C-alpha cells in the first residue's frame, strides 16, 4: 500500500483510475495473442522508468515485444490486482509490492512458485524473505533497496546551519528553527486526492526505532500479543505525527496538496522536510532532474542518538500468475530481469537510488547526495525492514487514520487503538492463529 505512487495528478489520470476502479472488471485480453509479452505495472514514474528500461533492453536482445499496461496505485490498484487475479484476467506478468501486500494475494493459489527456477539463485536472501510464502518463492525484484525516512532540502539546512538530527527532539528543534526563520514550512504533508498514503510514513518509517526498543515486536504483533496502543514505542509514530501537526510545522495547504506537488514544494525549498520513501527520488529526477542534487535524506529519528537507524522497504517484484497459459516467454523475461544484464538495463534507463537485490550487480559511483546518505545506513548495518516485511498483517485503513491524526481530527492514542481494530480485521481475514 505504501510503495505505490500515482504518476501525476491530472484530471485525466484520476478519471482513468476511478473509471478503472469503479468498473472493477479489467477489459484486457490477457495478452499473448500477437506474440507480445503483456505486463501490468503501477502508474508511478519509478516503476514506469525501470520497467520501460527492462522492456526495451529485452526487446533489443530477443526481438520479443513487451507491452506495459498501467494501473493506478494505492488501494485502488490493490483492488484491480486482486480482482484480475481472481477472475483469471491478469496479463502474462504483473508488478506488485513484496511483503504483506503479496501475502494478501493468496499467492499459493494464484501465483506460480519460482523457487525451482535457476535464475532465482542470484536473488539475494534478503529479498527472497519478502516474496516467500512457506517454501515457495514468487517474485523477481525490480528496482533498488528503498529507505523510508525524511527527505530534506539541503539548501535550507545549510542556510540555517542545521545538523542532520539523530533524535526526535533534535528533529523537533530543527523544525522550530525552520519555523522561526519564517520562510519555509518545516514539514510537508500531502493529504490531497490519491495521496493519503503519504501520511503513513511517520508510523511505518519508525519501525527501526520500534524494533530497537522491542526486539520481539513483529512476532508479538503478528500473534496478537502486542498492539500499537499498548506498546509505547509503536504508538510513538502516531504521537510524532500529532506533535508535528500541533507544533504548527505543517505546510498550510497540507489538506489538498498531492504527492507530486509535495515533492515539487520540497525541491523548491517551500518545505524543508518530507517524510517519504526514497523512491520519490526517481519521481523528482523524472520531473526536475537538477533538483535531486539539492536533496538529502535521513532516517526518522528515535530516542537513541547512538542507534539512529533506517527502516527499509524491499522494492516490488514481477510475479507470474497461474492463469498465464504460455509461461515460457514470461519465464524467459523473468530470467532476464534476475540477471546482471537486467540490472545494467535498469541502471542505464532509470536513476539508481540504492543497491540491487541481484548478486553481481553494481551501482555507479556517482550518485545523488540523498542516495549516498541512504547507502551509509546500509554500509554501517543500521537497517531494519518495515513491519510489512516482518508480518503479513497490515490494516487497510492506516492511511485514513494517519490523515486524521495529521489533520487534528483524531488524537494519537485514539488513532493507535483504532488501527489495532483495523489490523484485527485483516488478521481474521488471513485466518491467523490467535485472533
Amino acid at each position, binding site marked *: 500500500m505504501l510503495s505505490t505512487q500515482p504518476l501525476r495528478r491530472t*484530471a485525466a489520470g*484520476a*478519471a482513468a483510475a*476511478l*473509471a478503472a*476502479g*469503479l468498473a472493477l472488471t479489467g477489459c484486457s485480453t490477457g495478452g499473448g495473442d500477437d506474440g507480445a509479452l503483456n505486463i501490468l505495472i503501477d502508474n508511478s514514474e519509478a516503476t514506469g522508468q525501470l520497467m520501460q528500461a527492462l522492456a526495451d533492453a529485452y526487446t533489443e536482445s530477443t526481438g520479443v515485444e513487451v507491452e506495459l499496461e498501467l494501473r493506478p496505485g494505492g*488501494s*485502488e490498484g*490493490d*483492488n484491480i490486482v*486482486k480482482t484480475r*487475479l*481472481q477472475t483469471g484476467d491478469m496479463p502474462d506478468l504483473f508488478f506488485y509490492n513484496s511483503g504483506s501486500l503479496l501475502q*494478501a*494475494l*493468496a499467492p499459493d*493459489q*494464484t501465483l506460480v512458485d519460482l523457487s525451482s527456477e535457476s535464475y532465482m539463485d542470484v536473488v539475494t536472501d534478503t529479498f527472497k524473505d519478502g516474496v516467500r510464502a512457506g517454501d515457495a518463492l514468487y517474485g523477481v525484484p525490480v528496482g533498488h533497496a528503498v529507505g523510508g525516512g525524511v527527505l530534506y532540502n539541503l539548501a535550507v539546512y545549510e542556510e540555517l546551519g542545521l545538523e542532520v538530527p539523530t533524535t526526535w527532539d533534535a528533529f523537533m528543534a530543527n523544525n522550530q528553527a525552520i519555523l522561526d526563520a519564517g520562510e519555509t514550512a518545516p514539514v510537508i504533508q500531502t*493529504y490531497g*486526492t*490519491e495521496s*493519503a498514503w503519504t501520511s503513513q510514513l511517520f508510523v511505518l518509517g519508525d519501525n527501526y526505532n520500534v524494533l530497537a526498543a522491542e526486539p520481539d515486536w513483529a512476532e508479538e504483533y503478528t500473534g496478537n500479543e502486542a498492539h500499537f496502543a499498548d506498546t509505547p514505542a509503536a504508538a510513538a509514530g502516531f504521537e510524532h505525527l500529532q506533535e508535528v501537526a500541533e507544533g504548527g510545522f505543517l505546510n498550510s*495547504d497540507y*489538506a*489538498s496538496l498531492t504527492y507530486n506537488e509535495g515533492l515539487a514544494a520540497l525541491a523548491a525549498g517551500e518545505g524543508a522536510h518530507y517524510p517519504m520513501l526514497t523512491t520519490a527520488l526517481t519521481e523528482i529526477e523524472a520531473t526536475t532532474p537538477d533538483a535531486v542534487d539539492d536533496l538529502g535524506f535521513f532516517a526518522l529519528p528515535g530516542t537513541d542518538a547512538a542507534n539512529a537507524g533506517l527502516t527499509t522497504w524491499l522494492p516490488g517484484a514481477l510475479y507470474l500468475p497461474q492463469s498465464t497459459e504460455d509461461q515460457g516467454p514470461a519465464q524467459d523475461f523473468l530470467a532476464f530481469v534476475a540477471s546482471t544484464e537486467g540490472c545494467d538495463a535498469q541502471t542505464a534507463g532509470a536513476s539508481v537510488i540504492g543497491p540491487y537485490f541481484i548478486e553481481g550487480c553494481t551501482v555507479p559511483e556517482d550518485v545523488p547526495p540523498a542516495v549516498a546518505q541512504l547507502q551509509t545506513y546500509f554500509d554501517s548495518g543500521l537497517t531494519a525492514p518495515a513491519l510489512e516485511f516482518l508480518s503479513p498483517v497490515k490494516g*487497510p*485503513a492506516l492511511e*485514513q*487514520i494517519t*490523515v*486524521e491524526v495529521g*489533520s487534528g*481530527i*483524531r488524537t494519537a492514542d485514539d488513532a493507535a487503538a*483504532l488501527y489495532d*481494530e483495523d489490523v484485527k*480485521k*485483516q488478521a*481474521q*481475514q488471513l*485466518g491467523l492463529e490467535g485472533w
Partner: protein
Amino acid sequence: MTTTALPRLRKSRSHYPLWFYLPAGAVYGVLFIVPTIASFYFAFTRWNMSGTEFIGFENFALFFSEPYLFQGMVNTFIYGVLTSGLKVVLGLLLAVFLTSQIIARGYLRSVIFFPTLVSTVGVGITFTVLMDPEEGLINRALAVLGVAGPGWLTDPDLALISVALVDVWKGVGLATLIYIAGVVAIPQEFFEAAKVDGASAYQNLRHITLPLLRPATATVIVLSLIGGLRSFDLIWAMTQGGPGFTSDVVASVIFKQYQAGFWGLSSAGNVVLFLLVAALMVPLYWKLNRKEVEQ
C-alpha cells in the same frame, strides 16, 4: 368465435401468453435475482482471495463494530435528507419559474437539465478542481471579493456538505423536470376560476399549484432520497470519504472493505444497506401514496 374467445381471455387476465414474458424474465433473473441471492449467501461467508468459508453472522457483527460505520450512517442520513430536501425546494421553485411566461424558457429548461446528463465522475473531478482551497476557481473568485474561502473539501466539517451541494447541482434538473410535468398537468380551469375570484399569484401558488403537485413531490422525494442514501460515486470521486473518515457514507465504507479484499464483509455491508434503505423507503413511500389517495 369472438364470443367464445372473450371469456377465456378474461380468465387468464392477460392479453399475452405467459411465454411472452420469458425473455425479459430470464434477463431479470440472471442479472438481478441470482446476484441478489448470491450476495445474501456471500454475506455469511469469509470470502477473499483464498476462497469462501461459511462463518454465520460474524461479518455482520464485524461490520457493525466498524468504528467509522456509525459516522458513516449519520453522514448517509445527513446527505440523503439534505440533497432530497434541497432538490424538492429548488426543483419546485425552478419548475414554477420555468412554466411561467418568460423569455428563452426552452433554453433555460435545457440549461437546468444539462448537469443531469453529465457523467457523475466527471462532475466530481471538475468540482474537485473548482473547490481546491488554494488554486480553485471558487476560492479565487471569493478572494477577489475579499472573502477568504474555506477548504470546501478539506475542512472536515464542510466536506460532506460541499459534496451534497454538488449533488444538488447535478440532480436538481431531474426534480425540476418532474415538477414541470406536474405543473403543466394542472388544468388551466383552476387558474381561470381563481382569476375570476381575484386570487393573487401567491394565492395561486399556495392553494392551487402546491396541493396539486403532491404526486410530483412524492416522486421527487422518493427518487432523491433513495439516490442520496445509496450515493457513492460523487463522494468517491470528490473526497474518497476523506479527510480521514469525515465524509464517509455507508456505501463508501462498504467499498473500502471491498478494496481491502474483504469481499464477504462488503457483501454483508451491502445487505445492511439494502435493508436500511428498504426500512426507510417502504414506509415513506406507503405514507406518501396513501395521502395522495385520501385527497
